[in-house]
């Protein structure tokens, strides 16, 4: 078999390298865009799940038990703007003279933020295991930016109540938790 032992000329090699480089640059930008989109949607999914969990937990209680009142927690005579106490019209099954009371709280522990919506010992005595399993505690994604003036906001208009946890990520995307209730 006779082989052409001359190989490629310099111009051919340069042309090939330039062509391959153009294609690679195009592909690299494409992959980077896809990766950025994937990362962004992953972060968004984490926030969406967190927001949905909290809205679902509080929304179900408002629908099933009827909202009686929503107020900031009072600590040493002052409003604590990191927690809101929600009292419902329905009584506890274990104590028919005590209304169901839950607390929405944002707190910082072990270098992480958490949002909890739960029965708390200070508001409910002898919490049962049935009640305890309805407690919701969720870790907030690491890059969260919360409002330092108060993690939780409460707005009212006559009987309408808006509970808000303003949140955003480091890129400025907003993922607020907004819950609406009607005091009955």
């Amino acid at each position: 078999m006779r082989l052409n032992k001359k190989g490629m000329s310099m111009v051919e090699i340069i042309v090939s390298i330039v062509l391959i480089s153009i294609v690679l640059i195009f592909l690299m930008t494409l992959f980077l865009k896809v990766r950025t989109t994937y990362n962004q949607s992953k972060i968004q999914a984490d926030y969406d799940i967190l927001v949905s969990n909290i809205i679902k937990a509080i929304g179900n209680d408002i629908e099933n038990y009827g909202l009686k009142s929503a107020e900031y927690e009072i600590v040493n005579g002052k409003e604590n703007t990191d927690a809101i106490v929600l009292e419902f019209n329905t009584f506890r099954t274990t104590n028919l003279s005590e209304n169901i009371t839950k607390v929405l709280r944002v707190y910082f522990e072990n270098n992480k933020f958490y949002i909890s919506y739960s029965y708390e010992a200070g508001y409910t005595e002898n919490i049962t295991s049935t009640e305890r399993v309805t407690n919701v505690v969720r870790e907030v994604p690491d890059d969260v930016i919360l409002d330092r003036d108060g993690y939780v906001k409460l707005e009212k208009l006559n009987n309408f109540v808006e509970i808000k946890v303003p949140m955003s990520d480091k890129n400025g995307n907003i993922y607020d938790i907004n819950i609406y209730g009607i005091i009955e």
Partner: protein
Amino acid sequence: MKKGFILLETIVVIMVLCVILVMLYSSYSNLLVKVKKKSLYDNTEYIYKTNIVRNYLESVIPESEYNSSLYYVVCRNSIDNNKCYSDNITGNYENDLFKFLKVEAVYIMLWDTNSINSNDLTGFEATTQNYIKSLDPTNESAFRIVVMYEEENNETDIPIYEYASLRFGSRG
């Protein structure tokens, strides 16, 4: 022998590159279409708000008022005489509810939005038309409530409109 690339070799290389690029582009554009479609999905907050609006409207609007037409406009802030709420009124339950939830428009329409053609939608806002077209209807004899909300836009003064829809009425 100084032949270099022959035409056939060049065409083959270009063809192979083109096929790879077309495949990559189509998969990438599919991804973008999916992301765009996802942005039109109702989110939990608006579904929850719409549930409050629906519970109220189901108790005050009889089915006879909306079952004879393709769609029924409950209120729309873009039309002066049919605003959803007024900032000057307080103490009226419906006004306070719509003001508090920032309701911009409420429509009740057939569940099967395929039966509503584009000409019927000309009176709607462009964003509403897009939303209705993005719905995935099934051929059912039911109604849906579509609620449009105004959201603050932190970057510009132009408001953002968000939508959510749920089944409405006894047939839901």
